[in-house]
């Protein structure tokens, strides 16, 4: 093992200059680019949410025109989902999967380069619409017709941006599947894969199944607008609701595309800091797979209010409720992993535990909304805004941030500043609850979502929500500080980094050489997953 590593070191000459990044075929460099890109987009999308919270700070219109407010709501979601969350997940996959399975690199390194470099172009298309006649997309990230067709010159840019993002994601997914299926080290059987790798295989299959559906949907919008088709126009024999079916057939699996990589990260972190193997590895794999499978049968719960037949409403209600079972299994397995462990609470563990608590809150409100008759009241209010932000922010994003803290010493060779990390966690956790919890209240009390102004009865809670939002937004700057500080130096990390860490990636030096595992390692039960 160590001989192989030394051998790698010997050949460790990196390309230099801008070419190293532009033409990179190295999974580590591409992973870094994905993560940096995601971080930048996280702040772009975050800045938009700050505009939203500033406008909602008080009743009345203070800062932006309602049309621009709608653009903020729409583009905030598109940037966060396609620009921050998905690239962050792919970045972690790029960095970690080859090192976890003992592969020298990704299976398709040139495609890897292309799938990253599409992203800046796609977002240039999307964000350029702010400077066009008719403004940026303002019909919601869900792009429902006929409203989205009212968009001005920016409309084709929106459609092509979505196409490019889809192509990028599909290429990333193919790459991950090809890598894991073909490039595992000898002895690394499927049931020995770390759970992060499992989560990503399943995510990759979801991507390949779901993204083309979205691409088809937006292409139909394009032909409706410019080529006289009437897929979504009742006057021409079409149906606007059909778009919603198509969109959510992509959109619901998309939820799991976002969340499964974070679940994978948490499944690595919790055993490490509990110093105990993951509880129920097999059931974890099956639960993840069944969540992914079920995610294709629940799409219509996003659109209960369109007026479906009773049987349809009942089917989608039961199917939605059933997802609670495998999700519960995952939560219980993580709890059982912690149970009777020997826990320490470094920053990655704090973020993982934060995810456990707050993702569960999002799960509870999700279960409530799965009940069709009451969803008729919750739908399109701040209750749903609270729900999906609980799932996404202290759920998915906490998982990604936890992963960054977890692997940062491995990537840079230096320990990050633990005090700053803890400060980041506690500020984020307190402010994220101040930000999102009261949204449950105002939603139940009747405040609709996607409105720039509201009745004065909601004013008091909105002040608190906005304050929470500002603190949360500013707290994320600590992460940037921690990362920069850690890259520049710090206490040297050992190969294993964490006392309880197991798996191939922790046998490599910190930082790992530019090329790793050019000679595949031998994997046995003892050296397999944590």
């Amino acid at each position, binding site marked *: 093992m160590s001989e192989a590593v030394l051998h790698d070191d010997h050949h460790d000459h990196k390309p230099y200059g801008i070419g190293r990044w532009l033409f990179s075929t190295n999974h580590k460099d591409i992973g870094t680019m994905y993560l940096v890109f995601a971080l930048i987009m996280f702040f772009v999308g975050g800045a938009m949410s700050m505009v939203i919270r500033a406008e909602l700070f008080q009743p009345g219109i203070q800062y932006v025109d309602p049309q621009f407010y709608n653009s903020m709501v729409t583009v905030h979601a598109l940037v966060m989902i396609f620009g921050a969350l998905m690239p962050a997940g792919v970045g972690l996959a790029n960095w970690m999967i080859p090192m976890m399975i003992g592969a020298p690199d990704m299976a398709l390194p040139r495609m890897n380069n292309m799938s990253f470099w599409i992203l800046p172009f796609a977002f240039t298309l999307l964000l350029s619409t702010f400077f066009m006649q008719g403004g940026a997309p303002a019909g919601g990230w869900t792009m429902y017709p006929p409203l989205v067709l009212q968009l001005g010159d920016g409309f084709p840019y929106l459609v092509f941006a979505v196409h490019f993002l889809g192509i990028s994601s599909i290429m990333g997914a193919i790459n991950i599947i090809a890598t894991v299926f073909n490039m595992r080290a000898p002895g690394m059987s499927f049931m020995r894969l770390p759970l992060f790798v499992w989560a990503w295989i399943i995510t990759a299959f979801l991507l390949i199944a779901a993204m083309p559906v979205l691409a088809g949907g937006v292409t139909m919008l394009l032909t409706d607008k410019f080529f006289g088709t009437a897929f979504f126009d009742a006057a021409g024999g079409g149906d606007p609701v059909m778009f919603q079916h198509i969109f959510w057939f992509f959109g619901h699996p998309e939820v799991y595309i976002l969340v499964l990589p974070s679940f994978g990260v948490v499944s690595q972190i919790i055993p490490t800091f509990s110093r105990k193997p993951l509880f*129920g590895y097999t059931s974890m794999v099956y639960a993840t797979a069944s969540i992914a499978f079920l995610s294709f049968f629940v799409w219509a719960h996003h659109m209960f209010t369109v007026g479906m037949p009773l049987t349809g409403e009942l089917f989608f209600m039961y199917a939605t409720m059933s997802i609670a*079972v495998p999700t519960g*299994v995952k939560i219980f397995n993580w709890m059982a992993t912690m149970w009777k*462990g020997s826990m320490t609470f470094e920053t990655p563990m704090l973020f993982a535990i934060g995810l456990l608590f707050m993702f569960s809150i999002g799960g509870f409100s999700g279960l409530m909304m799965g009940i069709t008759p009451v969803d008729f009241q919750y739908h399109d209010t701040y209750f749903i805004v609270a729900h999906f932000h609980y799932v996404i922010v202290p759920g998915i994003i906490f998982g990604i941030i936890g992963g960054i803290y977890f692997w940062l010493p491995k990537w840079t060779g230096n320990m990050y500043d633990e005090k700053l990390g803890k400060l980041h966690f506690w500020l984020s956790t307190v402010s994220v609850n101040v930000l999102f919890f009261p949204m449950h209240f105002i939603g139940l009390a009747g405040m609709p979502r996607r409105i720039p102004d*509201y009745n004065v009865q909601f004013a008091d809670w909105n002040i608190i929500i906005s304050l929470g939002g500002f603190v949360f937004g500013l707290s994320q700057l600590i992460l940037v500080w921690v990362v920069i500080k850690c890259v520049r130096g710090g206490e040297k990390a050992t190969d294993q980094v964490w006392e309880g860490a197991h798996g191939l990636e922790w046998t490599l030096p910190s930082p790992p050489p530019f090329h790793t595992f050019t000679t595949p390692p031998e994997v046995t039960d003892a050296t397999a997953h944590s």
Partner: protein
Amino acid sequence: MSVDKLKQIALGTIAASLFFISGTALADYMNVLNLTEGVTPTSKMVYDLHMKILYIVTAIGVVVFSVMCWSIFHHRKSKGAVAAQFHHSTIAEITWTVIPVIILVIMAIPATKALIFMEQTGDAEMTLKVTGHQWKWKYDYLDEDISFVSSLSQDSNDARQMGSGIDPNTVENYLLDVDNPVVLPIKTKIRILTTAADVIHGWWVPALGWKRDAIPGFINDNWTYIEEPGVYRGNCAELCGRDHGFMPIVVNAVPKAEYAVWVEEQKAMQLAAAAGADKEWTKEELLEKGAAVYAANCAACHMAEGQGIEGLFPALNGSAIVNGPATEMAMLILNGKNMMPAFKDILNDVDIAAAMTHERNSWGNTVKDVVQPSDVKAMR
């Protein structure tokens, strides 16, 4: 910083925020916490179901979070905990699969009953058709031949403009008030049909216990049975463009006798309005009416002085269309274009003629002619 100092700061912060909350009247916060019980059998059923599920998930949350907290406090290395090495237990895994299934079935039974009850739209005594327009609601009483448009009340509309200088707190029912409320009889099974003219809207009055999308080209049927007289307010729930937040719904539920009187009044008013389209109007009459129609329907996007918003909404001041032939301008108003809604079902001939006359004679526009309601009628 010492631990004591930290504790002091934490306590201080909590005390300060409590003071802040109590200072702005705790009651304000407590009133805005939960779903309304509403005034229909449906809304009460939905409220009961909501509370039942809320209690169940809260109980699950308390149990799960307690176990987690117990583990976090007791199984920590700093307390000398030594990690056990178990990683599997079939009994535990079966238990935490089966128990959730049982809980879900317990929830699904009342939910199914409620859903079946809500879908019984037959046997209605009257029918109200609701049509969503950007950004107002049109109501047709199908049995009575009454129809009218309901839009945001003028005082809310004035206050919600950017830089209006009007404090929303001084406006009664800010953003939840309309010029023409829907009047409905109590203790009557009413079928409510929702549809839309341009984009998808969502008709939602929380006190009735449901919301339903209004979809162009399709009609959704719903029903309600209001038990108590009162004024019930709601909003458009589905994002429908720039003024989505400014198309509220007000339902005025009255006893049956009072409703009958209102119906007669409305019929008389509609007859009088229909007569107006055929009469010859003077320029002064049209200009006076036009200014009001413009303020209520056009100024939101094209702005009070016709200057529009650069890059979003075209200016009418100096516009080629406003200064061009009346036919083209009228067709654009009647049928809409891109973000511009079609006004053919919202405004009557007199309103459109008046607004056109106002625009063609105002600001720097040079045509200065008169458009008669009969001209608009001919172009429909």
